[in-house]
């Protein structure tokens, strides 16, 4: 099925797209058909910057297990670093 459902968040960061490194302003997460992964459905994450056009996109297609493991790994990595070390610029005091 096409789910049509898309979870969108604002982000700050950078990613490497086709034309090289770009600034990113949003991420979308959705469970739907992949373009490349050989599964009927996948967890798709797009890191994008709409202001730079459709090609300003870093995309991944993951299995559910991989996506959840990734989410855990992200939390673990942040928890094991000094608090606020990678916080958005100006969002937290650096120690």
């Amino acid at each position, binding site marked *: 099925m096409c789910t049509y459902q898309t979870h969108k968040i604002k982000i700050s960061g950078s990613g490497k797209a086709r034309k090289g490194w770009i600034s990113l302003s949003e991420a979308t997460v959705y469970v739907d058909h992949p373009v490349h992964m050989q599964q009927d459905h996948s967890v798709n994450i797009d890191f994008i910057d709409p202001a730079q056009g459709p*090609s300003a996109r870093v995309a991944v297609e993951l299995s559910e297990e991989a996506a959840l493991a990734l989410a855990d790994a992200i939390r673990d990595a942040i928890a094991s670093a000094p608090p606020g070390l990678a916080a958005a610029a100006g969002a937290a005091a650096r120690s």
Partner: protein
Amino acid sequence: MTDALRAETVTIKGHDNDEIEAYLARPLDGGPRGGVVVIHHMPGYDESTKEMVRKFAAHGYAALCPNLYSREAPGADPDDAAATVRAAGGVPDERLVGDVDGAARHLNSLQGANGKIGVIGHCSGGRQTFLAACSLQIDAAVDCYGAFVVNEPPSGMPASMKPILGLASQLSCPLLGLFGAEDGFPAPEETAKLSAELDRLGKEHEFHTYDGAGHAFFAVDRPAYRPEAAVDGWGKIFDFFGHTLSA
């Protein structure tokens, strides 16, 4: 008689007379021939959809697939375009109808056109095919596993994605429906409700539900591909267009 065909990107007038990109394939013989509008699936105006367009031309039709994402993502890769339109909430129904109408008008303007128009779509394009067939005067429609024609979508879907069973009384042409018995969206219960409503309204339709097939069984580049269902389905499509699109 020749089996030569020409396939190319063209510009057509879509909804609101917007200029949009489209992929056209047609035989090089003189006609007369019917036209087929191919509505691409949600992943976009991609290589597999263009293959379908050429397949219709190889079978004697002029076929045209409007790029529904032309406005938001001109010139972008199909996957980038699809992601952009998805993030923006999808294609509005009204615009879809206008783009299909523009594609039909373009097909009918081509040399050799016999004035008959069929529309076909898969997945989201299946629902959009039903929408177009209930909104425009056309001659044949093929809905391949379009969901949310009858049932409400799960919460969280874009507001534009709503059931359209209420339009069934306006269906302007015979409808061929090809579905998978293992599909959840649309599940066989949903397509059965659609069939019952079309029976009630006296609307000509022919539905086939394939055992052992789920959603997207026509998609040759996906694991959902089911050759037996797809090969039989293509046969039914060409039989159907053979008698609905002949002059």
